[in-house]
């Protein structure tokens, strides 16, 4: 392996505190998962930004569409009846 040139790219996800989900914070290069975790700690949690880190090889992520086009999400656009605000409720009805 020729230096850092061939190291894979890892996406880094950090849980900022207990009770919250992991969120994407950025990416980094590392030769394997263990070193990706250590590098992620040094790079993305220097100020106690996290209590847990996930690293995922970027190449293993499957994304919705090659160029983030709107059509993929169009089916949801005309179904406003999925939101509670769609419905008319008479005055005085509580807890609904």
């Amino acid at each position, binding site marked *: 392996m020729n230096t850092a040139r061939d190291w894979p790219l890892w996406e880094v996800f950090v849980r900022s505190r207990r009770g919250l989900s992991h969120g994407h914070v*950025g990416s980094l290069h*590392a*030769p394997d998962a263990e070193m990706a975790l250590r590098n992620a700690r040094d790079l993305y949690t220097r100020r106690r930004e996290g209590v847990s880190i996930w690293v995922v090889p970027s190449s293993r992520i499957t994304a919705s569409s090659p160029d983030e086009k709107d059509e993929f999400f169009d089916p949801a656009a005309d179904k406003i009846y999925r939101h509670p605000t769609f419905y008319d409720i008479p005055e005085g009805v509580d807890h609904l």
Partner: protein
Amino acid sequence: MHDHDPEERFQAIIDDDGRIEPRDWMPPAYRKSLIRQIAQHAHSEIIGMQPEGNWITRAPSLRRKAILMAKVQDEAGHGLYLYAAAETLGVDRAELLDMLHDGRQKYSSIFNYPTLTWADMGAIGWLVDGAAIVNQVPICRCSYGPYARAMIRICKEESFHQRQGFEILHTLSHGTPAQHDMAQDAVDRWWWPSLMMFGPPDQESTHSEQSMRWGIKRFSNDELRQRFVDMTVPQAEVLGLRLPDPDLRWNPERGHYDFGEIDFTELFEVIKGNGPCNRQRMADRRRAHEEGEWVREAAAAYAAKRAAQREEVA
């Protein structure tokens, strides 16, 4: 929004103050311009470790030493955030480093000035990082998502850098007469180069107009420079230090401080490679990269060994 024309769609997102994300269509020139800017920014962060690294072993107290090390580590981190942002545009970090090492890409000229005394650590934090913050805060709203997100992280961390610099100068300025003189000398040397960090005057700036249209840049060089002067003058008064410009005075009509003419021939000389430390900075960067080769090799060998062990177990 319908995408009959990808360029129209692209510009519509920007005009709507939306963000462009890595896999969106973008004009080749937008991509190229961003790669150039983000790479130059990343290079500046890692070259910027040198002038301050110079003082780690000679920091006047353990407290100052720990702070300076944390700051230099931050600069490395900022470089990595930015290289990662640049890579989302389809370049390779190793390629960008090659371009830095062989001079095809540049870094901020400010790092080609020497750090002669401890007070320079104060002046760099207060003035150089202060100017950087003024430049960088608007980039937190840049049209390219990954660059904007990296800048948000960086700006949060930079404010510690500026404060620690201010504190160093404040302590020196209110110390012995010799310490006060050292602080004044540092400010005398760093003031004009800091003003040049905002780039050439608007009428001579080559990249500005298109960058504005693309939402990469939001304020002109001269606007940002004025903003920096206006916020810095009152801080200098608190420090008890003089800014070395006889023409510096409040202009009530403009509502801004007027300041003297900047000698841009100096800036262009430094950009061309004729600053006091250009050659040394580049030589040190290449040497650090070459001497770090064994670490990269060891990391790769360790990863290979661990992978082989896992295979045996399985």
